[in-house]
């Protein structure tokens, strides 16, 4: 029997539909404006920043789902976590693609040397690879196949979030206020899982 004030299946479907619609709309509209030269003097920089920041914000939202569901005792909220994570990866793909295609013009030699030489790109690239692994293994069939290992693998989301925080921090030329605020948000969301992380790190050491 449903407890009072519990979100029903219908509410979850509505929330999911809204998130899908908004993410799709923002992604499509920004690229439309960028391609039609309506995104400021340099649409390349604008689209790289937009997709990167959006991916980061979606990752923070993804990490906020579990604590929010626990705090509000709305277990069904957990069902939006996967889609938020996948949208985060979608924006991260758009980010990496925009950099490779529109900034570097598919100069893969330059891409390779930039990933190696520029610390902020190195950490960003590792974070991106982690997100890709997590996105692939969030296919239902793989979730079932991986069983217990799935959870351990997906704990890497925490490392990815920290790396993205560092990526943003190091990419800023002068004022670091904004990246610091974001980094504090990441640390805050991780500290809510302190007990779990302590156990996890402890078992990894043994």
């Amino acid at each position, binding site marked *: 029997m449903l407890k009072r004030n519990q979100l029903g299946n219908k509410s979850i479907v509505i929330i999911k539909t809204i998130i899908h619609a*908004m*993410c799709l*709309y*923002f992604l499509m*509209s*920004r*690229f*439309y*404006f*960028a*391609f*039609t*030269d*309506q*995104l*400021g*003097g*340099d*649409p*390349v*920089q*604008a*689209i790289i*920043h*937009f*997709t*990167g*920041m*959006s991916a980061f*914000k979606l990752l923070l939202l993804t990490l906020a789902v579990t604590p929010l569901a626990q705090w509000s005792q709305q277990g069904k909220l957990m069902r939006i976590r996967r889609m938020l994570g996948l949208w985060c990866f979608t924006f991260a793909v758009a980010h990496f693609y*925009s950099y490779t*295609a*529109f*900034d*570097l*013009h598919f*100069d893969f030699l*330059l891409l390779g*040397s*930039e990933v190696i*030489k*520029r610390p*902020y790109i190195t950490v960003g690239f590792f974070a991106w690879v982690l997100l890709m692994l997590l996105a692939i293994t969030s296919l239902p069939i793989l979730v079932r196949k991986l069983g217990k290992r799935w959870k351990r693998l997906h704990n890497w989301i925490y490392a990815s979030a920290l790396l993205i925080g560092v990526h943003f921090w190091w*990419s800023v*030329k*002068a*004022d*670091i*206020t904004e990246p610091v605020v974001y980094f504090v948000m990441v640390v805050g969301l991780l500290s809510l899982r302190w007990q779990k992380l302590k156990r996890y790190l402890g078992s990894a050491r043994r």
Partner: protein
Amino acid sequence: MLIRTKSHQDLTEAEVTDESVFQNRRSVLKRMGFIGAGSLLGGVPAANAGLLDWLSGEDQTKGKPTVSQKALSYTDSSHRVDETITTEHKATTHNNFYEFGLSKSDPSQNAQSFQVDPWSLTIDGEVENTITLGYEDLFSYPLEERIYRLRCVEAWSMVIPWVGFPLAALLKKAQPTSKAKYVAFQTLYDPKQMIGQTSRFLGGGIRYPYVEGLRLDEAMNPLTLMSVGMYGKTLPPQNGAPIRLVVPWKYGFKSIKSLVKITLTEKQPPTTWNLSAPQEYGFYANVNPKVDHPRWSQASERRITTGGLGADKRIPTLPFNGYADQVASLYTGMDLRRFY
């Protein structure tokens, strides 16, 4: 299956759409985009400005210079790069001018009420004649148009038609003394007008006023330009009105804007970005494809000219930004890796 047949009574989309809405469809779409983006996923400050603009109905003026720019009379010069010129819109909406905000679109939005008249530019220090120029005096030198490459340290570049006069003409009038070895430049300090100077959050944590410097021989080089205009008109505020320096063979941050003071000195003067991050920005800052910046490869650059995403090209960066013939001799015998 639903099969729709069209009868003569059915209205088409065009018939029910008000003509004014149709004519403004782009702007309507744009406003929808900006309000949406500003409210959730907007990563660029412009998006937030867009939201406010949408509410106040002013987004038509967004990014467009609203201060009046006067047409200038000038002669052509032989300094003309034969490459596609960047559109005026891009050159005036993609600016690094932290005094007016940190994002590239901030200056064109925040600088429009900037007062350029009256103005005062002083040339002092190791000179025989201290000179003070008022606003009208800035335009008293014979003006010429020069089409120069502009290479930003962030690995993008533009081609811009400047209007101005050689700095040498100004310095000759002031007559540097025998002690003068360097030239120090200073931007206006006026936090009331320049929002970036009010706090380190808004100004990117660099020190103000913005200062720059050149060696005297660099300053006297015929390429070194005092610009009072671009695209045939006086400079818009975001590009450094009413007068700025243009040193085409150095990274853009050397070309200091909205100048109020030029001081001839005996010792090498401090420069803003060098003070902020000495391991990243040197005093010389000559465009050099062989010396990478810690954040960017300088071997190539993205040339911004016209059009949307994918329209620009990545091209190799040239030593001294393609002006090696005119300036390489200034640095004979110097290790340009050390003096970056």
